[in-house]
């Protein structure tokens, strides 16, 4: 009988602990917003010539409770409108070796989840591409839409900073400074 009591007691303890952890996990998840169909684009411009590349497979997670921002993009999904240019882009970025561009950082401003107004937010973290990571600060706009967060942000990437050699084709050269733009609707988890 004594043995039976001990087992029951432990079972209750484990059950309570499990309930607590599951409850806490749900609370954490409830504060996180996720998408894998965001849009990321870049614009490259030089005099008399400009082109844009984009992908609609940006994956992102904003965890409000942990104050973290995590985004990544498979660079092979970037489409510049000309297949041969895409191929060159993949070669320059060495996507076989470094398939992702990624950002992981923290929110510098708190998000008001009850407000439906546009909120200016700042994040700070590491942006990595081409195997090189640099700490950057990114400013963006955030809007609560029902149970989702709409995020837009843009920043500048200097190709030199990431050991990316700006290509030159015949007499046409690519701007060594690229403007990155993201637009994503993150759904509450």
């Amino acid at each position, binding site marked *: 009988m004594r043995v039976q009591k001990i087992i029951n007691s432990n079972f209750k303890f484990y059950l309570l*602990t499990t309930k607590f952890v599951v409850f806490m996990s749900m609370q954490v998840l409830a504060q996180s917003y996720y998408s894998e169909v965001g849009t990321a684009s870049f614009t490259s411009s030089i005099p008399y010539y400009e082109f844009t590349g*984009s992908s609609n497979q940006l994956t992102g997670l904003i965890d409000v409770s942990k104050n973290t921002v995590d985004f990544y993009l*498979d660079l092979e999904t970037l489409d510049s409108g*000309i297949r041969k240019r895409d*191929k060159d882009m993949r*070669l320059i970025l060495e996507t076989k070796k470094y398939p*992702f561009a990624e950002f992981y950082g923290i929110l510098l401003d708190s998000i008001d989840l009850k407000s439906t107004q546009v909120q200016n937010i700042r994040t700070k973290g590491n942006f990595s591409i081409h195997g090189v990571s640099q700490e950057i600060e990114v400013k963006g706009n955030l809007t609560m839409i029902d149970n989702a967060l709409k995020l837009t942000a843009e920043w500048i990437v200097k190709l030199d900073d990431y050991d990316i050699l700006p290509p030159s084709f015949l007499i046409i050269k690519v701007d060594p400074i690229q403007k990155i733009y993201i637009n994503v609707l993150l759904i509450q988890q």
Partner: protein
Amino acid sequence: MRLLFYIFFFLLFFDSAQAQMERKRATKNMPDTELFSSTSLVTAQTVSIVPKGEMQSAISHSFGTIRSGWGDLFGLDNNAAVHLAIDYGITKNLSLGLGRTSVDDVFDLRLKWMPYRQSNFDNKPVSMGIYFNIGLETLEERRFNYSFNERLNYHSSFFIARRFGNRISLQLSPSLSHFNTLVSQNTNNLDHTTFSALFLGRLKLNETNFLCFETVPINTDPESVSHWAFSYEIASGGHVFQLFLQSGYLFTEQYIIKQTSDSFWDGDIRLGFAIHRVYQMKRK
């Protein structure tokens, strides 16, 4: 026991709270496996197709045979044949093109359909498609008064191709060609319809440089000589530059299959070049 349980859950919870997302490769809209750099090698069409919304212009140029030596600068002064072409990607798998060859003033209208393409992401081992070409000779002919129908010729191919590893691509194109009109002093055994197979290959030297060949190993026309061509390709940006040596000097399949009379291996070799350029027609 309780302590172990606490540690286990703490680690589990702490890990999930701190870790970045697992990075997963995308599986949608990934680029197709590239088998050839351009839609045609020297003359033969490849399984590569102009993507939807893009337009490709091409200019191909071949000279006289190099065996003529310094007298006409190894053929550069002689017998230039020029082919101008424009192709447009109507859908992802369908393209339409129009071309003109300076010899015999031939216009050609072509259609390529590539519904099945080799893909590392979808486990498709080969590329397959079909190709049609209608040629119209517009050269004024004093000896005969050709009707429109008599000026037409046709070519159709079934493509099957595969890239082996990262460097070698091979393509076999069983084909049927037909000329409505043939001009010959020999009235015996004139076959208006020819069955043939074109065989193409590409060796990747590095990401931008390639060596290629094309030939016609099977040809039911006993009068024609098997066409051979070797090319060196440079692919850069929206351009593909080709420098080639070939035996035939025309630029549509039915003509090189039916009307090649020079033998590459007997020294009847012509120097030529081609430039392909792709344009984005629909701005993103």
